[in-house]
């Protein structure tokens, strides 16, 4: 597609429920990033993939958060046993270059997760 596609756009989860958020990056983009954006805040880095390799997961807040990109294209962010503090917009971004070769960093519109 022309842009980064994320699904679902909105997700309401009961506390303790597991959720899976999907990201379809721009075709051919090597790098894929996940960010968490709390209400009224800037995005915070979660994790980075170069093709199928997860090269940096330093931003994942706890071991309840897990991300994968098994074939180097679509990525899934999974949150186990959701807590209220997980409520945020989860943004996916992709770029053509590997590593830190910016610009070309295109964000999706995000998935808004609300944990009740």
């Amino acid at each position, binding site marked *: 597609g022309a842009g*980064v596609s994320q699904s679902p756009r909105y997700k309401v989860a009961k506390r303790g429920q597991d959720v899976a958020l999907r990201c379809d990056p721009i075709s051919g983009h090597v790098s894929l*990033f996940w*960010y968490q954006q709390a209400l*009224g*805040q*800037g*995005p*915070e*880095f*979660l*994790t*980075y993939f170069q093709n199928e390799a997860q*090269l*940096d997961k*330093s*931003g994942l807040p706890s071991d309840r958060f897990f991300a994968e990109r098994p074939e180097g294209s679509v990525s899934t962010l999974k949150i186990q046993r959701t807590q209220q503090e997980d409520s945020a917009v989860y*943004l996916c*971004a992709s770029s053509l270059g590997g*590593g*830190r070769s*910016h*610009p070309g*960093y*295109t*964000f*999706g*519109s*995000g998935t808004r997760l609300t944990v009740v």
Partner: protein
Amino acid sequence: QQQVKQSPQSLIVQKGGISIINCAYENTAFDYFPWYQQFPGKGPALLIAIRPDVSEKKEGRFTISFNKSAKQFSLHIMDSQPGDSATYFCAAIEGSGGGADGLTFGKGTHLIIQP
């Protein structure tokens, strides 16, 4: 520890005026500084970016001014228009391999351009 501090939190400018948003950073290893624009319900979109080897970069109505010694950089929007009303984020990253692979963002500035 907030590595990129952004101000003001909100800003109201009259149409045709100049909007100025400021950021300060602490990590001297940062070497790439982009600005993003975000509309409600959308992801951030890259506006303009600068590296520390230049003091100013201009693209259309948008200009970044960079002061390496003061560890500060700012976004100027000339001839501000109602369509510029959005939230603006500054960001930074180390390009040479240190630190995280993701951008460090400021907390954002909510800009309103009054007609």
